[in-house]
């Protein structure tokens, strides 16, 4: 381009000298155009420029006309003896693979013209797009593409991110505060609606999965912590320590104010998440300061979340911090800590869910009470939970409250079993801590259990598995003879767990 400009200038100078020598006495001067590169190359969807061209004509400039492949594209009036003009062009999908010819024609008052030609080679539309800055205006990620999260990407207040069905989003490597993640800040919205045949998949760049695939071609469903996760934050009420109005969500450094959640609008709407699968995430900042597969902080009831799968997250599968949002049809497989984790008086409903515990899964259900003066309770119902020798069924703590009904547990160890060389490891049970016991008063609440079923390991009784009196609401059933629990039909077709045959044990 530099060479071109140089040649052009030389040529212009030469022409000028030549013409002025020849027609010294006549006031009819020519026109020149410069600054337009001869060629350029961009991908479809990308933008050329703006480049700045300039025109000179001592007799007075009149106009600039631009044609694209011979057809008029635009005209621009010019004045004076010297003028500059910007030029930019965004290549559309139809331009892909073509050489576009742009012709620039400058005219002066007495009809002299100068022409410049630019040939733009447009490559194929890239299928992978790297996102490196926060989304501050409405944006759409389109079907067929893979989007790479180059850092923690925040959809900031007032903006909406639309993700079309089948899109794959991959987080780059990064841990601690550098973990890549997609954050929907308070006041921002997401509209990610996959379908049962074309889910939206969030995974790591290490995953070679391509649009159209559901199972990873190269990663095991136990690989965790390769990127962050999805964090949705809203303005609904939360029960926060010290009764502060808002708090910083875990996993985001305190200095990034996009990490604040909580407020007073219980009907807050953060958008729609449907048919999404989140995998291999959970990078952490420090102990107990990590990113869950799906983190919901103060998310309001106006938000729709249905059909979510979380696989191999290094921390919890889904964690609610207060808020009022409800979630329907959730599947959590191989979570690195807890599968379902609730805190700070979440006041929504989790309906129809499957948990498949893995070697690192600590509690299938980790239910905590309020942290401030505000009290509210949630409902967890219609769930089927498959255990692992490392896993407890449920841990209810810190004055936990809520309704837990129609839940089926199987494949858990006996609490007396030895785990990792430790005898009586205490795995495989559902228990209440001392602070929570007073909340459990049978059917009157605020902590209610109803219709729990389990297929217990031989030798395990209902009272050793369901402790603190919860056994009264539990029944033992044979494997797959459960009358309560999840309906797996909701997970067929779009979940990795189903493709990997993990749902065989479920009804």
């Amino acid at each position, binding site marked *: 381009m530099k060479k071109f400009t140089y040649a052009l200038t030389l040529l212009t100078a030469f022409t000028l000298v030549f013409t002025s020598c020849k027609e010294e006495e006549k006031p009819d001067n020519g026109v020149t155009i410069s600054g337009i590169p001869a060629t350029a190359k961009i991908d479809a969807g990308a933008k050329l420029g703006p480049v700045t061209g300039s025109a000179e004509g001592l007799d007075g400039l009149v106009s600039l006309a631009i044609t694209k492949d011979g057809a008029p594209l635009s005209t621009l009036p010019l004045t004076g003896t010297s003028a500059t003009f910007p030029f930019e062009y965004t290549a559309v999908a139809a331009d892909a693979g073509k050489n576009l010819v742009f012709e620039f024609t400058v005219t002066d008052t007495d009809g002299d013209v100068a022409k410049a030609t630019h040939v733009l080679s447009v490559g194929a539309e890239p299928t992978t797009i790297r996102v490196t800055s*926060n989304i501050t205006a409405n944006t759409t990620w389109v079907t067929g593409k893979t989007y790479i999260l180059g*850092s*923690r990407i925040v959809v900031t207040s007032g903006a909406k991110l639309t993700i079309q069905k089948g899109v794959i989003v991959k*987080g*780059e*490597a*990064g*841990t*601690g*505060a*550098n973990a890549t993640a997609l954050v929907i800040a*308070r006041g921002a919205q997401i509209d990610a609606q996959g379908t049962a045949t074309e889910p939206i998949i969030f995974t*790591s*760049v*290490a*995953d070679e999965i391509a649009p159209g695939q559901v199972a990873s071609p190269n*990663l*095991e469903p*136990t*690989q965790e*912590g390769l*990127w962050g996760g999805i964090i949705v934050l809203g*303005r609904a009420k939360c029960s926060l*320590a*010290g*009764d*502060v109005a*808002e708090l*910083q969500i875990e996993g985001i450094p*305190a*200095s*990034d*104010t996009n990490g604040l959640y909580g407020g007073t609008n219980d009907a807050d709407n953060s958008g729609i998440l449907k048919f999404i699968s989140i995998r291999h995430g959970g990078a952490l900042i*420090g*102990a*107990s*300061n*990590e990113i869950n597969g799906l983190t919901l902080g103060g998310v309001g009831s106006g938000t729709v979340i249905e059909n979510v799968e979380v696989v191999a997250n*290094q*921390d919890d599968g889904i964690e609610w911090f207060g808020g009022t949002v409800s979630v329907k049809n959730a599947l959590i497989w191989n979570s*690195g*800590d807890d599968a379902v*984790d609730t805190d700070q008086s979440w006041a929504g409903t989790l309906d129809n869910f499957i948990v498949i515990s*893995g*070697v690192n899964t*600590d509690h299938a259900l*980790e239910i905590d009470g*309020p*942290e*401030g*003066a505000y009290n509210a309770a949630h409902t967890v119902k219609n769930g089927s939970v498959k255990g692992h020798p*490392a896993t407890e069924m449920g*841990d209810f703590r*810190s004055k936990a409250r809520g309704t837990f009904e129609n839940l089926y547990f199987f494949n858990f160890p006996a609490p007396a079993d030895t785990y*990792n*060389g*430790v005898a009586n490891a*205490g*795995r495989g049970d559902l228990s209440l*801590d001392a602070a929570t016991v007073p909340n459990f008063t049978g059917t009157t609440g605020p902590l209610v259990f109803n219709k729990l079923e389990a297929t217990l390991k031989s030798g395990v009784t209902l009272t050793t598995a369901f402790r603190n009196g919860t056994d009264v609401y539990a029944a033992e059933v044979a494997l797959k003879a459960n009358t309560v629990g999840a309906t797996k039909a909701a997970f067929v077709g779009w979940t990795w767990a189903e493709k990997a045959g993990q749902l065989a044990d479920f009804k």
Partner: protein
Amino acid sequence: MNKKKQELPIKPLVVLLLIIAFQLITGFVFAQNGTIRGAIFDESTGEPLYGVSVLVKETSTGAVTDFDGKFEIQLAPGSYTLQISYISFATVNLTEVVVESGKVNVLSDVLLKSEESELETVTVSAAAIRTTESALMSVKRNAPNLLDGISSATFRQIGDGDAASAVKRVTGVSIEGGKYVYVRGLGDRYTKTVLNGVDIPGLDPDRNTIQMDIFPTNVIDNIVVSKSFTAELPADFTGGVVDIETKDFPEEKTFRVSISGGVNPSMHFNSNYLTYQGGKTDWLGYDDGTRANPTGGRTNIPQFAEVIGNPNGAKGQEFQQLLRGFNKTLGASNQTSMMDFGLGLSFGNQIVRPKATWGYNAALTYKNDTEFYQDAQFNLFAKPIDSNQNELEALQIQSGNYGVNSVLLGGIAGIALKTKASKFKLNFLHLQNGESKAGIFDYENSNLGANYEAKQYNLEYSQRGLSSILLSGNHFLKGKVWEVNWKLAPTRSTIEDPDIRFTRFRLPTNTISPEVGLPARIWRNLEENNLVGKLDLAKNMSLWNQDAKFKFGGSYAFKERDFEIQSFQFPTGTTPLDGNPNSVLKESNLFSATNRNGVRYNPDFIPNNPNKFQSNLTNIGGYASMEANPLAKLKTIVGVRVEKYTQFYSGTNQNASIVFNDEKVLDDLDFFPTLNLVLALKESQNLRFSATRTIARPSFKELSFAEIIDPITGRTFVGGLFQETTDGGTEILWDGNLQSTRINNFDVRWEMFQPMGEMWSVGAFYKTFDNPIEIVQFLSDPGSFQPRNVGNGTVLGVELEFRKSLKFISPRLEKFLWTSNLTFTESQISMSATEKRSRQLTAREGQKIGDTRDMAGQAPYIVNTGIAYSDFNTGWEAGIYYNVQGPTLNMVGFGNRTDTYAVPFNSLNLNVNKTFGADERIRTSLGVQNLLNDKREFIFSSYGAQDQFFTQLAPGMRVNFSIGFSF
């Protein structure tokens, strides 16, 4: 990060050894005449007298004092009388001055009094003036500003081994954590430490002042603490400036070797002591590379997510190789602890030539101390949710044992040259300190929605190096009319924490998960270079028929700091673990093509590292001040200082959305007026008054975007440049605009000096703080702390000091001296609206929240008292000293966290010295520290609740001894 290894200065060491050898050989060669050396001072000003005639009556020979007031006379062995006379001063006859063959008799300082005040001639024996402390007392009495000090003579008497333990004998001075100076109970933010009058960088990035414990007392001539500001001092102090002056012209040829040791029954020879395998040079105070970062500090290393898909590709191979380069030791092991021991070597002399006097001086110190804290506690407590419940709830309970081995190697060498009208000094100093820590803790967590018990393993190493060169000159023009002093001092300091290791297993299953925290490794590096230049001019003149002095000058300081932390986490994937920290990184656990879900590393600092920054500052100062006596009894010093201070910062916030590239973060131009008045009520009584303005500026780290996580406490330091807002950004809690604190200081003091070093003083002070900086909790993240300007504050204090011989009880107790200093303060900060609201929100039932609270770091009282015994004839010296500092607000609570307070530590120490042999060549000491066996404690304190420990450490009782030989 570990590109630059700390190397021992081999060449200077060799030179030093040669000098020592030379000293030893020449020491016994020539001996004929003996030498008398002494110094003469003006009793009324405390300044050295120039041109005083010293006549040896017996021989009628003599000498004239130089501008330092010093003289030297060579004489044949014998006993002489010196007649010391000077115009308009009373003559002193000093009798029984003994001269021995080949030896130097160093006389104590002689103070000459004005003629009109006393008899014409005073006769006194040389032995009777032997109290160095009273000479310093005279300086103290006559100084126009408020100062206190302690000299090397006192170090010997008390047996203090380092500057930290010595300086706390000074009125209103206390030492925090055995290292950092508090003056008048004001924290180190308001205290400044200078070496030979010039700034030296603090070695701890979290501190404004330098650790005092790294200066061995045998290189120190004196420590002077200025408590009121005069224009020639740097303006950034409030509590005081502590000036450590190293020795320059030894009065006599010395060559001393000493060994010392200490035994702490609770810490030493204990087979439970915890340590870990370090490098071969740990015993010299630096790491030999054993703890080097296997990546070499690179930031282009592969990450796990980049290699998991292709473990044996080029990047994958590199990843595997780096992973295997991390030292595999993660847990402490038991070893019987050694006792403390140390070696000291120092020598010096002055060589008198017809035209010049040379002085040289060198000291080497080696200390190897071992501490073992058992049942140490580091806890977190918070207020319960219900406001009708008062008792605090535990969030984290961490208790266990840890061992610390600390090595200090220090070398100082100085050459000084004195001519008729000039003095030059060149000093080199290098201090090397290495500290290795190993701990095993039981950990119980109920914080952040996670309940578990765990076993925690910590291994740490920290090495600090300080190298400083000082070149200075003093010139006297036209007799002593003009005095010109200049100083030039480059200093370089480094602090490295190579390979801090942290591992925590969840119990009882011995698992590692994000909830308990992943194993972590940290490399921390700090480098600071300083250049300080000073020029001071003084003109002695006569004003209102009295001596007066006009001083003016300028100073220039440039400091730059490079700081970087690189930390790694080690997810363990699906690796089964057995609870042994040293097997976490065993080969079969590590990530490979056949173990794709094995243990791997994750770098926290790629691509953005907010904990990497460069800062620099320039401070240009100028001043003018006038010292005069408008009335015969009134001494005044009036001055003004101006400082132009600019600080620049290069660094980014965490997600690099804010990038500062050498951005100006502080730009202050301030005028600091000073007024000091001394009214001599009687000859030995002064009434002092001072009013001054000073400043306290934020540190490099505070004016940054750094976000430094401490893996042990889980707390995060957040740089002051960040904003914090609440209620959806509508309310700004902190605007990110950290400002300097301007302070007005007012002092009044009455003092009475009596013979034999006795004195009384009573004083009061009042300070106002405009925008003081304190460490405040982030409201939205209670685990994060940030320096912020809080509401304005005041401190009101009363000081009482006395030194009294116990002969008033019985004449037999004449040799006992009782010294005490007491400081009581009342501090107040008016709380910001945010802080007040946070306190109201979490107030307990019946608790009233006022508008003010204590100022953080301000002790309500400091008590130092002790009784010293000395008998120069028998060589016995002994002292018993008590020190305590009142409960001090440590960290300001926010939200459900409460304030933490330092609990008074009752320190009672005993020391006994005895000298033996001809010329007291052998000096021994024996002491007991912490006779009361008190514990160091910090507590959480809340309304109506029982206090809970934040930190509890048992330092135990320590018996120390030393023996030194002079050749």
